[in-house]
């Protein structure tokens, strides 16, 4: 059987994790190809709606990563983000959407190896959980046309 290859999107901040991922590259540490990185100025900029959008558009997992607490380039963006993720997580859990598909992490500009680890672990984890079909099913159902076309 063909192995399931999950799609992951990574939302990362420019100053820590993006730079950390650059370091992974310069250190030539290999990791899984299943991730696509999107650069944000700060974790504080990451709207929870973007995570929803990623899932609605076919992502099986999302990695969110930024500076360690107290290391934010903008002093407090990651603290605000952390509260947002805590709330978002709580909400998803309550709605029965297992937040394990969202992997949050702090990766500093010096943690190239940690970034590779995070990606590999995340890909493995999502691979184990399987494709996010429930969510994608939602996308297509419910239109009357589907009703009368059977």
């Amino acid at each position, binding site marked *: 059987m063909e192995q399931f290859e999950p799609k992951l999107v990574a939302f990362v901040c420019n100053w820590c994790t993006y730079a950390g991922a650059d370091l992974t590259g310069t250190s030539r540490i290999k990791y899984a190809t299943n991730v696509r990185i999107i650069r944000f100025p700060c974790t504080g900029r990451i709207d929870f709606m973007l995570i929803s959008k990623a899932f609605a*558009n076919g992502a099986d997992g999302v990695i969110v990563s930024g500076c360690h607490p107290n290391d934010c380039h903008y002093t407090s963006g990651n603290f605000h983000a952390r509260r947002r993720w805590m709330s978002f997580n709580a909400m998803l859990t309550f709605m029965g959407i297992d937040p394990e598909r969202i992997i949050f992490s702090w990766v500093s500009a010096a943690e190239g190896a940690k970034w590779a680890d995070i990606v590999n672990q995340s890909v493995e984890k999502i691979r184990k959980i399987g494709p996010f079909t429930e969510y994608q099913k939602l996308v297509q159902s*419910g*239109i*009357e*046309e589907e*009703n*009368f*076309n059977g």
Partner: protein
Amino acid sequence: MTPETKIIDRVALDKLYESLKAAGNKMFAPVFRNEQTDFEYNPSAAEISYSHIQTTQSVKNTVFPKIENLFRFESGQKSVELVQIDFTKVPRVIVWNAHPCDAAAFSALDAVFNWDYVDEIYNARREKLVVIGMSCIKADENCFCTSVDLGPGSVKGSDILLTPLANGKFIAEILTDLGKSIADENASLFTASNGENKEEVLAKVEKHFSHEKVTENLKDGFENPFWHEFSLRCIGCGACAYVCPICTCFDIQDESKAGNGRRLRCWDSCGFGMFTLHTSGHNPREVQSQRWRQRLMHKFSYQPDRNEFIGCVGCGRCSRACPVDMNILEQLVELEKIEVAAK
């Protein structure tokens, strides 16, 4: 055709339902679920509710669904291609057990969707629609069909109208050719009528106001302080419009991914603040009182003017659904009494 009257008992009625369903018709019948009664597609005969006074939602979903595709599109590198909907695939839908108010509402919808623009998709659905009505033997304080020229036993809009009798049987009035064809196909299920009188069992619904008077009062009532006074309580949600059998406001949206997608329409409400917002930033109905006025004027003044019917069948759903007790009957009674503002 000349209407004829027959009798059908409950067991036969269920059989009729199942056979229509088995024949590939999409059945739309009321079911009690989640503490309320509402129409659903293809429930089993046993699930169908016959004891409710009114369903939460109307039956307009059968011809004017809350979401429907208008067309699909696919884009290549240089151009976009439209894929039209094949209306011939619209299935026959049988509305089962609709109260006379709901049945009557279809004629209002017909008028709206064929007024200045003939709405193909609506008509495609409408042509395939059969209405099996059910007279009301119960009513509540929100019902006012008699005030809008209808009644608990009104036959308007039904192909067959059933009326439950005390003995558990139903009077079946076969009203249209369509109705007759159904009755004929299942003739064995019906028995002859013995002159049972449906008026005896019908619910008593008091006539609360004269809609002609309301319409007349509204003619010069645009600037009436009434609107402000009576709409202060309104919070501007769309509950009334969404449950209304006649409200037809809709929104058109495109949904696409990677250049492919569909154009669809979905319900909207004139009660929403941004419904009439112009790109310029101007909003002709800026405050809720203007929007509430629009709702009542549209139903009781503009539509009588334009389409010669009132946009209301007295089903009372809006009053029941309203979270803040904007009771339409109460307001219509007031509007009948109100002095036309001095010109």
